[in-house]
């Protein structure tokens, strides 16, 4: 037993209520109660946590301070230092980002005949895609359809989603699953090949396709292997710090910072795809995060300075079940699949307080309410609070061995710290998980800046104000492929004759505006990586002293 003594009486209460909870039904919340819950306890609604932007295409729109600080900042690299006259690379399509969206875009663009270059600031596959555990949605069963999936997506997103984007998402989904099967992705299947699909929060059909609880890892490593086989040129540990425009404002490449030798490089590209992911490492409102090390909203900053319009930047998704104990892994993800296969949420008294598979915004809010307003959270040794996720119940409901078979990554994560989740519950609290909004795209992945495409978490509009589980692994592939197709078509139609003049005037102008508006001089963006070092090391980013 790895739980400290003060936490154990609550575990006994939870054990005592287990039998009666097995048959307890909690209905879905009616719309008005759901809205009251969100307004009362969802962090997006907390006063004083956001501000209106002072400049750019979304001037006047609200966004969390942590994001606003990146838009209201000077450029991280000096535009005058980039040698625009002789670019280091000249390609048809530049893909920035090495997660699922970037790699699928690169694969498709190269297959269409384009010269592609993929750059990434960490390694290929060091991305949230790899960390996605729960599954991927697609309406491919006989009781389901893209239209039924569409309605689930819109309801989950508060009916604010861009209809053409949600339609593209659900329409392409079955073909994405077929593409992944072809690539050798090991979906959980029955002997006859039918998929073992399950529910996720907010789904009306069991359309969650899984690969144990390593779904994202399995998809990502197949994509990466395929990309290596196809010999797509890749440069790792190079971060984009600025987009390059031509005098007409069309995007034609990017400035890269090599993080290993601090050199700036320039890529000229006929089309550019941003697949830079989300912003968990900004730690909005001090929340821990389930995101990978590089989730610092770089793409949003670059696109915004180039003039692109953003959408839904005032809504962040907090995953209901981040780790609340042990302290070393606070904020890391406990996949929704744990609830999909039967685990229940209970408070310190061992009582349930919400139907576990409400949409994420709603479940997260209910956990916050339980801990903050009702004072029924379980206290950890560091003074934080959480609620139980009754995982031994899974083995009672689905048979012994289910956890090891279906949730091996989760089992490993906790047994590492001496907690056996087949016998003991695990403690959970919401964690910053997903950027619901991002750079506004159309259904081909193109932004309001010509020549600039976006795919994956960096894109905005698909999920409205709240994404459903399993729709992110789906959207990176749907819009990665769509952006790859559109960018390569656009690039190949330009032909070889015209070489645009490269300019960073937009970045220089942005700096001038930043100065005029009086932003702090040391506030620079993108930040590329979070800085977890203590004083006196903090803030001394060697890689910004570039040559």
């Amino acid at each position, binding site marked *: 037993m790895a739980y400290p003594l003060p936490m154990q009486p609550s575990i006994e209460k939870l054990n005592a209520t287990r039998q009666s909870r097995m048959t307890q039904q909690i209905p879905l919340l009616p*719309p008005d109660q759901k809205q009251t819950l969100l307004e009362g306890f969802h962090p997006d609604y907390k006063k004083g*946590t956001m*501000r209106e932007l002072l400049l750019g295409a979304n001037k006047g729109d609200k966004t969390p*301070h942590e994001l*606003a600080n990146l838009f209201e900042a000077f450029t991280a690299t000096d535009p005058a230092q980039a040698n625009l006259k002789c670019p280091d690379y000249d390609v048809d399509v530049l893909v920035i980002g090495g997660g699922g969206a970037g790699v699928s875009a690169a694969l498709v663009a190269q297959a269409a005949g384009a010269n592609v270059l993929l750059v990434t600031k960490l*390694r290929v596959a*060091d991305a949230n895609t*790899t*960390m996605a555990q729960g599954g991927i949605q697609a309406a*491919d069963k006989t009781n389901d*359809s893209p*239209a039924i999936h569409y*309605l689930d997506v*819109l*309801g989950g997103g508060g009916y604010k989603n861009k*209809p*053409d984007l949600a339609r593209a998402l*659900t329409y392409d989904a*079955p*073909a994405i*699953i*077929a593409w992944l099967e072809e*690539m*050798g992705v*090991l*979906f959980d*299947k029955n002997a006859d090949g*039918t998929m073992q699909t399950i529910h996720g929060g907010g789904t*009306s059909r069991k359309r969650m396709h899984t690969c144990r609880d*390593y779904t*994202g*890892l*399995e998809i990502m490593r*197949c994509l990466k292997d395929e990309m*290596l*086989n196809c010999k797509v040129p890749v440069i790792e*540990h190079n971060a984009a710090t600025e987009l390059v425009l031509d005098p007409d404002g069309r995007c034609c490449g990017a400035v890269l910072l090599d993080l290993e030798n601090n050199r700036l490089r320039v890529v000229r590209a006929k089309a550019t795809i941003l697949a830079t992911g989300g912003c968990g490492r900004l*730690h909005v*409102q*001090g929340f*821990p*995060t389930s995101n990978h*090390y590089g989730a610092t909203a770089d793409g949003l900053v670059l696109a915004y300075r180039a003039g692109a319009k953003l959408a839904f930047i005032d809504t962040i998704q907090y995953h209901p079940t*981040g780790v609340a104990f042990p*302290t*070393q*892994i*606070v*904020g*890391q*993800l406990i996949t929704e699949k744990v609830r999909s296969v039967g685990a229940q949420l209970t408070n310190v008294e061992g009582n349930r307080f919400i139907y576990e598979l409400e949409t994420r915004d709603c479940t997260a809010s209910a956990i916050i309410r339980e801990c903050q307003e009702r004072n029924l959270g379980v206290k950890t*040794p560091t003074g934080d609070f959480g609620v139980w996720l009754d995982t031994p119940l899974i083995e009672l409901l689905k048979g012994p061995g289910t956890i090891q078979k279906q949730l*091996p*990554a989760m089992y*490993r994560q906790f047994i590492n*710290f001496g907690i056996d989740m087949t016998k003991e519950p695990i403690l959970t609290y919401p*964690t910053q998980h997903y950027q619901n909004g991002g750079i506004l795209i159309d259904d081909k992945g193109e932004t309001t800046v010509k020549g600039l495409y976006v795919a994956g978490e960096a894109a905005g509009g698909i999920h409205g104000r709240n994404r459903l589980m399993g729709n992110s692994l789906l959207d990176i592939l749907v819009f990665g492929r769509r952006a790859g197709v559109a960018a390569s078509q656009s690039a190949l139609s330009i032909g070889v004759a015209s070489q645009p003049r490269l300019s960073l005037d937009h970045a220089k102008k942005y700096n001038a505006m930043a100065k005029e508006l009086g932003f702090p001089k040391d506030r620079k963006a993108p930040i590329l990586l*979070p800085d*977890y070092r203590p004083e006196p*090391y903090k803030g001394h980013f060697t890689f910004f002293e570039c040559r």
Partner: protein
Amino acid sequence: MQSAKGKVKEAECGERQADSGRVTIYLMGKPYQVPASLTIMRAMEETGYQFVRGAGCRGGFCGACATVFRTTDTYKLKVGLACQTVIQDGMYLAQLPFYPANKALYSLKDMKAAGELLVQLYPETMRCISCNSCTKICPQDIKVMDYVNAAIRGDIAKCADLSFNCVACGLCATRCPAEISQYHVGMLARRLFGSYILKRAPHTKQMVADIAARKFDPDLDTLTKASTDDLKARYAKREMEK
């Protein structure tokens, strides 16, 4: 302006610190005193390291932070992912953020479910001397030698199943006296299994055909044009699969 600034510092990387004294660890031979409850990754940051290599997901999935270490109580070489392993007093460690391993290039769609492909593309696999060093070092507790032996026998299914939890950190390849790149062999086996042995889902194929035949276009046309009130009413009336 950052209203929650104080809290940001505390929560920061999601790893909170219980007060439990300090211990000494040695980073590539150099001693540092750090708080006892930290993971290897956080402890290195505490000493002033900023990761460019050697950190990826920070959640135990990407394999970027493979670390080898020894402790004073045993001669044995130990390993762990830096983001998931708590430090111990006297820990003597180095990270292995990269280790060279050759990957075979192939066109999966032009292959077939032939077990001998595994050793044809990775002939060094046959050099396995069954020393089990790979299994002993795996931070994911995978039976690496067993899946290498499955590969030698041409058992694609077994090799795929046993290697499934691999995060490709590469530690197996560092220890192999036969110089095998085990994790690449596992990758090939899994892709062959998924693509050629696992049956394709008939319902997926059917749905792709139905969508190509535009079977659902009218429904989607209706929904994409529907008012929010109409959508809300439809949402409330959804039939939920049990």
